[in-house]
């Protein structure tokens, strides 16, 4: 399958690194390939810009950073400005529709899902990133859905598994319920 790159960008506190870690774990532990997750964040504990990059490959990875991403998940306006607005058309772009105002002129239009609102409606704001991963699972074949689920179960605190699976399904089924925009 060669080298695939995913970037998740937003601000601290959104579970960005955890998302990246789940993807990486799914790819390298459960899908048996290789994966490298790098992250970058500022001095703030919350609210500073935050970025996770996952490289997935079937051979060992040397350069561990994104060169041209297959997928970008964008969770803040700043991140959109930096990575989303001018992303190449072949990049699959997913945004949280409540946190990012998309430039109407952008083409192709990014996919969007109000993951943080959905999570808040669920009463668990922290699962927004899992909803997002569910949504990703439908849209991309970088990691298998099965592996993603296993990785989630392996990564979340004991006792929260059901909840997180529910969030995953929510994201997974979002298109079906809300009609795909693609």
């Amino acid at each position, binding site marked *: 399958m060669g080298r695939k790159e995913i970037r998740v960008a937003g601000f601290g506190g959104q579970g960005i690194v955890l998302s990246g870690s789940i993807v990486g774990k799914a790819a390298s532990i459960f899908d048996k390939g290789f994966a490298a997750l*790098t992250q970058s964040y500022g001095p703030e504990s919350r609210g500073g810009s935050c970025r996770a990059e996952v490289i997935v490959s079937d051979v060992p990875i040397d350069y561990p950073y994104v060169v041209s991403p297959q997928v970008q998940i964008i969770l803040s306006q700043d991140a959109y400005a930096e990575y989303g607005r001018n992303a190449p058309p072949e990049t699959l772009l997913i945004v949280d529709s409540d946190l990012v105002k998309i430039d109407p002129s952008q083409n192709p239009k990014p996919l969007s899902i109000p993951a943080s609102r959905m999570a808040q409606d669920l009463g668990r704001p922290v699962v927004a990133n899992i909803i997002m991963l569910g949504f990703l699972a439908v849209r991309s074949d970088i990691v298998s859905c099965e592996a993603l689920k296993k990785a989630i179960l392996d990564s979340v605190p004991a006792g929260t598994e059901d909840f997180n699976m529910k969030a995953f399904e929510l994201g997974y089924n979002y298109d079906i319920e809300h009609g795909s925009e693609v």
Partner: protein
Amino acid sequence: MTEYQELTGKFFINGDVACAEGAISAGCRFFAGYPITPATEVAERMSTRLPQVGGIYIQMEDELASMNAVLGASWAGVKAMTATSGPGFSLMMENVGLGVMLETPCVLVNIQRAGPSTGLPTLVGQQDMMQARWGSHGSYEIIALAPISPQDIFDLTITAFDLSEKYRIPVLIMSDEVVGHMSEKVVIPHVAPESLLNRRRPEVPPGEYLPYKTDVGLVPPMAVAGEGYRFHVTGLTHDERGYPVMTADAQDRLIRRLVDKIRLNRDDIIKYKETQVEDADIIVCAYGITTRIAQFAVKMARDEGIRAGLLQLITVWPFAEERVRELSLQTKAFVVPEINYGQIVLEVERCAGGKARTILVPHMGGGVHSPETILEAIRETAQ
């Protein structure tokens, strides 16, 4: 206190966590540290894991205390480690010297960030490489290893403990923020205790034991506190009995041995990895995370038809002097990318001795080189 709870299998973990697991696999049962980005996760992991395996985690009041607690623990017979980054590394230096002088096995991890001073706490640097060698006062030698991935830091942490026990010296793991914070698959094997090295223990009865008398080789056997040997050790210049002797003669004997036990065993200690150097016109010499970028750049160069190769320094100190000298006779130039303003390049240049050109590709820190930057340097050098 309890049996070792072994943790084996495949895990997607970052370098800091892998380092902690490597330590535990190596038999480390004592960690004293002080939090600092980006090394904190080593401590955090240890604080969870050590109590599980009957070890002790303690957060000391600062890095000076941490380094000393590690030395103390080692002298109580336990394999001990600490982890820090630039500012804390500076603070530990005085007592790295004590470790060297008392010949204390232990491991010190530096997950390098960008400096000087507080610098860029969350971002990468490779700027403490010369400090690793020269950061404490006095004449001494040290061992320093540079891992390139979470798996590598796991493995090298075990190596570090082995070397520290074998040569009775603090061993430094000079990693960096990228390796520390990046997550990759790490295979944790069953590590058989018999496969690990342990300091030689005295074979003579207490009355006959002299703490710094060497029998075979240059490394004396080591008694530990509480065994009845009733030994004395001191950071002052000392004789075989461990007693202070304030003469140039005693100094000469002691320091020569401390230095030579590393210098004369360099073939055992120094590890490097070569890729396509046989026919290389240009050899990129790299270590730590930069190796992986260099690898990428060398591939690109080969694709362009440039005969490039890669020399990865696994052991950074002692420096692979002989090998660089040899290579300088067969290559045209060394290209040395470092996340600093020129450190290991000075050693490469020295050992190249005018036989091969030496080109530094500096990065001031806060990120890794782009592969293109290194490629560009290779290209220019090739012309």
